């Protein structure tokens, strides 16, 4: 029996952007059958997004690139048809929800594509209604898309894609910019679409824990952009877990935990891919080894680094932070968590004096940000913004780092500045780039530079606003290891983040914000093992904690939240 014609066929696909020297992807061949769901994985730079853009012809029609080999969608070669024709076969959903909205209402937004196809009004409105009902936004059809949450906007983008009535749907990191609630939202919609079986789907996603249940097949690109693995989900992920980890591809947390346990003498075979499978596997083992002793946290120095007393922040008559009091000990690694709009960013901005708090409510190193100017404050606290580009002021990497020293009240000599900046350049691997314009750095380098500029005054407290937002896992890990080093050397670190598994791995203390109030503040384990608390805050227990909570056969393991607390040691 002949296999059905593939919906998508890539043959020896190589793409090189005009300004690049390398091909990425580089010689990729695979096909996607009608109704099949394929997850595309690979380290950053492997060309996943470029490949996605080639599927509807944006590469090479809209973006200047050289393409060799071929992409065919339902038998049409993408090089032979314009994007507008291909968009009737392949619909796209991109990462940034804000960059996909072009009209003034939810309903108009969904109609935009069909209107471009010159369909009759009645059919357009029918399609729009169907698409909006499919993603649960029909009730909000009159709203301005700006009023939707991040997850809502992304569902709208999916509805807009569905309204094009294409057999193929391509999603490029659709949840990278969303909070956990938004991610759940989007995956609820996607699993409906998958269940309906109407679309072939190509999904690029780093959050495997969310995606794994939906996917039939996994295709992995390696660092050079070549095809590394292609096969059914379980075969690829469980069968090649070590190789994938080495490639820098993120695995589901359950699989990572199992790999670690295998090293520690707990053999789990087959490797679990989901939290549920891990729970089940561990419950099936008669005796588990003792948990290793906790690595000793660096001792907190005497006295609080930051203290907040009855802080209330009101902006345009809306109270964003309400009566928050907390003390952050010197040398702690504190993460502020909560849903969107819980007041996390406002809280840390007030702590660091980015937005001056009311007088007498914040003290940082004995200084009140309300009454001290930016230069004096810079000696006590460094702040890293979500978008590093926002804070660059100078024309070279060297000057960027030197800036913080030059504007200080207590002047340093040029020689001293040279020495300090030199140290910082070395520490962050930017030595070769000292004369480069900050905007010409790569994403990871920009991020490192922004952390460097915050540290140059040797402030004992470093505050970061969602430092991993919109970044892939590799970059997020790179940054977090950097923060861990800083923490180990005594810096007090305060961050805001959505990713609770990262919180579990890195933070010593967690502050939970909800609707402007501080719900709880305490050691990470205590907070993350309190399911009721997280639920009130609108959060979900991170995947590892979720898996181990259910290990009722071994009660001593139920409170584990961090990979590092499992036996097995680092690879």
């Amino acid at each position, binding site marked *: 029996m002949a296999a059905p014609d593939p919906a998508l066929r890539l043959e020896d696909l190589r793409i090189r952007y005009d300004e690049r020297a390398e091909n990425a992807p580089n010689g990729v061949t695979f096909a996607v059958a009608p109704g099949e769901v394929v997850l595309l994985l690979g380290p950053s730079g492997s060309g996943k997004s470029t490949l996605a*853009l080639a599927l*509807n012809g*944006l590469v090479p029609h*809209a973006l200047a690139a050289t393409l060799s080999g071929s992409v065919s969608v339902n038998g049409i070669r993408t090089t032979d048809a314009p*994007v*507008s*024709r291909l*968009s*009737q076969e392949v*619909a*796209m959903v*991109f990462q*940034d929800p*804000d*960059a*996909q*909205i*072009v*009209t*003034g*209402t939810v309903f*108009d937004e969904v109609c*935009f*594509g*069909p*209107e*471009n*196809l*010159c369909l*009759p*009004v009645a059919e*357009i*409105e029918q399609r729009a209604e169907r698409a909006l009902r499919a993603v649960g936004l029909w009730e909000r059809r*009159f709203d301005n898309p*700006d009023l939707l949450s991040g997850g809502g906007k992304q569902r709208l*983008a999916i509805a*807009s*894609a569905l309204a*094009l009535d294409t057999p193929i749907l391509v999603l490029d990191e659709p949840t990278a910019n969303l909070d956990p609630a938004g991610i759940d939202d989007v995956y609820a919609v996607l699993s409906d679409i998958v269940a309906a079986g109407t679309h072939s789907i190509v999904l690029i996603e780093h959050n495997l824990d969310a995606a794994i249940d939906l996917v039939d097949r996994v295709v992995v690109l390696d660092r050079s952009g070549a095809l590394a693995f292609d096969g059914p989900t379980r075969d690829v992920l469980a069968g090649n877990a070590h190789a994938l980890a080495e490639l820098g591809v993120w695995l589901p947390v359950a699989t990572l935990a199992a790999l670690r346990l295998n090293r520690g003498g707990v053999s789990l075979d087959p490797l679990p891919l989901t939290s549920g499978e891990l729970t089940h596997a561990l419950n099936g083992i008669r005796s588990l080894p003792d948990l290793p002793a906790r690595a000793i946290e660096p001792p907190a120095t005497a006295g609080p680094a930051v203290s907040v007393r009855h802080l209330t922040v009101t902006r345009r008559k809306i109270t964003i932070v309400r009566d928050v009091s907390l003390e952050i000990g010197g040398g702690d690694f504190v993460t502020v968590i909560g849903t969107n709009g819980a007041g996390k960013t406002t809280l840390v*901005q007030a702590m660091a*004096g*980015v*937005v001056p708090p009311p007088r007498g409510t914040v003290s940082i190193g004995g200084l009140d940000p309300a009454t001290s*100017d*930016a*230069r004096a404050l*810079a000696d006590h606290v460094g*702040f890293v*913004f979500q*978008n590093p*580009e*926002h*804070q660059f*002021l100078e024309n070279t990497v060297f000057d960027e780092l030197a*800036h*913080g020293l*030059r*504007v200080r009240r207590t002047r340093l000599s040029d020689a001293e500045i040279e020495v300090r900046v030199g140290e910082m350049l070395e520490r962050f691997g930017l030595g070769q780039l000292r004369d480069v314009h900050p*905007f010409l750095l790569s994403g990871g380098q920009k991020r490192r530079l922004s952390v460097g*500029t915050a540290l140059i005054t040797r402030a004992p407290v470093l505050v970061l606003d969602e430092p991993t937002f919109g970044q892939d896992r590799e970059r997020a890990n790179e940054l977090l290891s950097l923060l861990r080093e800083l923490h180990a050397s005594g810096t007090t670190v305060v961050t805001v983040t959505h990713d609770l598994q990262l919180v579990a791995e890195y933070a010593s203390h967690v502050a939970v914000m909800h609707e402007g109030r501080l719900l709880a503040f305490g050691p990470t384990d205590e907070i993350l093992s309190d399911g009721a608390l997280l639920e009130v805050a609108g959060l979900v227990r991170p995947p590892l904690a979720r898996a181990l909570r259910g290990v009722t056969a071994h009660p001593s393991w139920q409170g584990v939240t961090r990979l590092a607390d499992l036996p097995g040691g680092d690879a």
Partner: protein
Amino acid sequence: MSAALDPYSTRPGVTARHFLHALNPLAKIAGPLPFMVYLLFVRDIATPLAFACLALLLVTVGARLTPRLGIALWLGLPLVVGVLSLSFGLWTDASRVDHTPLLFQLGDYRFFLGAWLIGLATALRLGALLSLALIAGLTMTGPDLVRALVQHLHVPYRIGYTALAAYRFVPRFRHELDGIRHAHRVRGIAGGRGPLAALRRYLGYIVPLLVGAIRHAERVALAMDSRAFGAFETRTERYLVPLRARDWIFAAAFWVIGASVIVGTARLG
């Protein structure tokens, strides 16, 4: 269904009495436009005063005004015109008007009635231009204007709707600019105070803002291309902005009334 789904046609509080909202944007522009041009060249007081009153009356009767906007139009605008008339008057060459009554004297400086009247004429022209522009400005929306331009003046839709998409950039850039300003302030700005330092500071916002803008625009363009934007010579218009008899009547009536105002004020003068 379409009418109810058009966010721009259903504005809160707009009823049948507010007839300006129901007119085609092109009619609301075509009516006042010739007189706005004419006002650039008049020098008297009566003509701009008459047009300003005409426009304000029309807006008050035919547009949905919030109380605040009403106060701004009827009290704020005259106040601004009054202040402007004084300041324009101060610029007037006193020797040309020293035959008119003296209004007040500050040291050597003398302010004559004639100077004030010249200032008033200029200020009233500005006020009248603004009021005429408000007839369309207060009662139409960007999307409606774009649709009317595309449907009746055959402006290419690719340009019109791209402009509409760009509309959405504004709030995003404001947000982005806020972020940049915060970030720069926290870093401590070198260069101290004063207008030059401020200028330097503003220049410093441009690069990050521009980089962000270009990246955003590129993404929006890819998203629009992916949804078949520009596929055909035309696209389906779900909202028609027709030119009806009432639009022609409005424009014609405006021309007739405007012309009689000109004739009338000329007789007065």
